[in-house]
């Protein structure tokens, strides 16, 4: 006989204020099979958990229903509690009274009645729960890091230094990411390249790290501990083993006018190129879209000059298959550009630029060698207007979030500008100054108070050109929205940060969730910020949401710690909520008829054939068998199976029927 305990949590007033918990406990105590039903202020607290544990022992409970918050919040907490009291954790179910009831309804009889129905359904379900035991699977102790920006580099180095193999995949010819483009970094103003480059080199030389640059993820199969990864190594058109990185090919290449992505298109590069001098690996690739040979079928000048005959025009993309136990996603971010701001004349006026372009102009290795000059005429700009929140926090632009880093880098830009052009005047249009962070507020105050940047709280309505000047029309909301008109020489837009292109496709390949802005979604916003909902895939850096360097690096180290934790065991335990094929007495052996229509519905290729053999070895019957290492428990095969020979542990057909029956069984 079932002996079920029902534990009703008030969650302070979160549930108790809306649902009559006393009545709920009284009504549930009358459910058949319920031997204990109590309500308590905070069931997840230490005394609450103790209450459950004692009740399990005293009442010899065979099942527990905790009526509290969402199972997504505390299911594991309460299952652990049960386990500590000697009850199999899978004999505990959570009735979601908070998110699905008290928080969405007014205090009323209906709310309490709904709570009663919810608990009744879970009581009937838990009666059919069976003890389940975690599945052990081996772990491949190699991590795959996708993205070679600062977050990816940090994660890779941390994992590698923890003694595990790392494969890093970077889609560009060089690692480094956006950080390598920056001039200086806030709030210390140290040189970005100077702190990043050593890390890049360390990574390239690390014995535990394999770097695939100019490569992308092709496909992913498998599951935590046992991912099977296909990586597409795009054809660089050079033999990396032969190439010495002498650079002669680049010098000789006749195609000169290709916009240089690294310089945000403010300079030119060749068709065979190294993105920047400190690139890792420091070997060129041929940009086939612009190379004369690929376009017209002749040229091959680079091949002629290459001293080691390393040029390979017929090189194909290569698919590399690797196995990995964990994946760190560090694909970074991008910024909004050109056509997104017609009102600011961006793309029309040469001297309206974005933040990253300003970084390149301010960078000693940039197109102006660090001298801040107008792009239109090369003159020194005497008045520069910086516009924060260009696109961010702007529902009309479809970007409602704060891009977070702009306040700080705008302050940095104002300071850098002032440092380079002492008689220049920086103006900053802002909505709010968000300078939360160690030494951040001090840094913005310095920009205003010491460097004399004029901060104007208001938005710029439009920008137009007159007599070589950019007329910036805005309003100062702190001065009763008084119109402000500034005749500027240069305008820098702190454009919104957005998810990097291809994030959606990548998320779909990896089966990780992403939000409406295509940023990857963490498993829990507070408690599991570096994990995704897909076990074994972790997040680092701006691919989750826009982050600055220290935050990206900390999250990368966090992800690395998670990976190292995973790799600290030889095998990992998996949730046993998987599909199983029934076995029955002979001569049937199983109700499975071996039609194997389920095979094509399984996303994980987890359904195999099993031969049932007689004593003499002859095959009596061939039936389906689920590989417990591969099955992820989606249950698609279960719904498809005509004879109901497959069932899903934790969501069995009987359990769901019991739930449907109970939830509608309002007496």
């Amino acid at each position: 006989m079932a002996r079920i305990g029902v534990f009703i949590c008030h969650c302070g007033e979160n549930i108790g204020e809306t649902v009559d918990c006393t009545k709920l406990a009284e009504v549930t105590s009358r459910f058949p099979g319920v031997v204990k039903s109590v309500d308590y202020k905070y069931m997840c607290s230490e005394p609450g958990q103790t209450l459950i544990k004692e009740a399990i022992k005293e009442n010899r409970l065979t099942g527990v229903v905790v009526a509290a918050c969402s199972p997504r919040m505390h299911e594991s907490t309460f299952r652990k509690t049960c386990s500590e009291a000697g009850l199999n954790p899978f004999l505990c179910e959570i009735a979601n009274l908070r998110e699905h009831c008290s928080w969405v309804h007014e205090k009323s009889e209906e709310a309490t009645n709904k709570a009663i129905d919810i608990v009744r359904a879970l009581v009937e379900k838990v009666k059919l729960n069976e003890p389940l035991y975690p599945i052990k699977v081996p772990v491949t102790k190699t991590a795959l890091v996708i993205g070679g920006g600062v977050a990816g580099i940090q994660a890779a180095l941390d994992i590698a230094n923890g003694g595990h193999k790392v494969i890093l995949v970077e889609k560009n010819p060089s690692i480094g990411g956006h950080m390598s483009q920056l001039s200086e970094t806030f709030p210390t103003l140290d040189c970005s390249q100077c702190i990043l480059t050593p890390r890049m080199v360390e990574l390239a030389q690390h014995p535990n790290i394999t770097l695939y640059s100019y490569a992308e993820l092709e496909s992913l199969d498998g599951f935590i501990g046992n991912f099977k990864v296909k990586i597409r190594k795009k054809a660089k058109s050079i033999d990396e083993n032969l190439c010495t990185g002498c650079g002669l090919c680049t010098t000789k290449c006749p195609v000169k006018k290709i916009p240089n992505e690294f310089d945000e298109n403010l300079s030119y590069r060749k068709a065979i190129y190294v993105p920047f001098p400190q690139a890792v690996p420091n070997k060129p690739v041929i940009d086939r879209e612009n190379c004369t040979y690929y376009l017209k079928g002749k040229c091959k000048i680079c091949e002629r000059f290459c001293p080691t005959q390393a040029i390979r025009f017929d090189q194909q993309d290569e698919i590399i298959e690797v196995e990995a136990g964990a994946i760190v996603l560090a694909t970074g971010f991008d910024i909004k550009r050109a056509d997104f701001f017609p009102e600011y004349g961006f793309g029309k006026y040469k001297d309206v630029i974005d933040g990253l372009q300003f970084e390149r102009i301010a960078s000693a290795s940039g197109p102006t060698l660090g001298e801040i000059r107008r792009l239109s005429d090369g003159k020194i700009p005497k008045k520069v207007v910086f516009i924060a929140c260009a696109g961010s926090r702007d529902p009309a632009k479809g970007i409602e979030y704060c891009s977070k880093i702009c306040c700080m880098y705008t302050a940095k830009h104002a300071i850098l500008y002032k440092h380079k052009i002492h008689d220049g005047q920086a103006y900053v249009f802002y909505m709010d100054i968000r300078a939360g962070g160690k030494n951040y507020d001090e840094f913005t105050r310095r920009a205003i108070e010491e460097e004399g940047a004029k901060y104007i709280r208001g938005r710029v309505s439009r920008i137009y050109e007159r007599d070589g000047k950019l007329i910036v029309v805005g309003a100062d909301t702190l001065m009763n929205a008084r119109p402000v008109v500034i005749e500027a020489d240069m305008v820098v837009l702190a454009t919104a940060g957005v998810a990097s292109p291809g994030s959606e496709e990548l998320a779909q390949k990896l089966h990780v969730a992403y939000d409406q802005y295509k940023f990857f979604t963490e498993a829990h916003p507070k408690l599991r910020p570096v994990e995704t909902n897909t076990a074994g895939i972790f997040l680092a850096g701006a691919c989750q949401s826009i982050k600055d360097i220290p935050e990206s690096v900390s999250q990368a180290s966090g992800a690395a710690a998670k990976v190292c934790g995973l790799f600290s065991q030889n095998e990992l335990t998996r949730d046993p909520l998987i599909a199983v094929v029934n076995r029955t007495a002979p001569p049937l052996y199983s109700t499975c008829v071996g039609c194997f229509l389920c095979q094509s519905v399984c996303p994980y290729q987890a359904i195999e054939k099993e031969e049932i053999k007689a004593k003499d070895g002859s095959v009596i019957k061939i039936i389906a068998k689920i590989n417990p290492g591969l099955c992820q428990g989606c249950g698609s095969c279960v719904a498809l199976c005509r004879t109901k020979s497959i069932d899903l542990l934790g969501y069995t057909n009987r359990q769901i029927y019991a739930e449907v029956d109970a939830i509608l069984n309002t007496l």
Partner: protein
Amino acid sequence: MDEFEPKIVAFVCNWCTYAGADLTGTSRIKYAPNVRIIRFPCTGRIDFMFILKAFARGADGIIVSGCHPNDCHYTSGNFHARRRWIVFRSLLDFLGIDVRRITFSWVSAAEGAKWADLVNQTTAEIRKLGPYTSYHKISKPEEEVIYG
């Protein structure tokens, strides 16, 4: 007579719609109390018989909801489910079963407000249609059947 309160059962997937409904709660958006949620790992797990069983047990309306296309936690469960629903729905309609009482939907984990709207709209729609008398009538098992 009391005003008719529709009984609606929602079959939702754990990863998107269940989480979306959690978000509705976290956002404190209020909605009609007529829906009872049953949690599935994936819409691919939802057997069409569960829908019939809910009607037979007295449901007036049903919501089936999961992840948007391409968002399935298991990559393809929602695609398989969608195909099954296309066929199932046309069969039910052909048999004269009121398919307006089954709302299929995609509600992501980020669409807390959509979940509230969906529940409210479905409740209003079913309220308008009234109790599903014709199905409930045949669902009371006959005491006896005499051919003739």
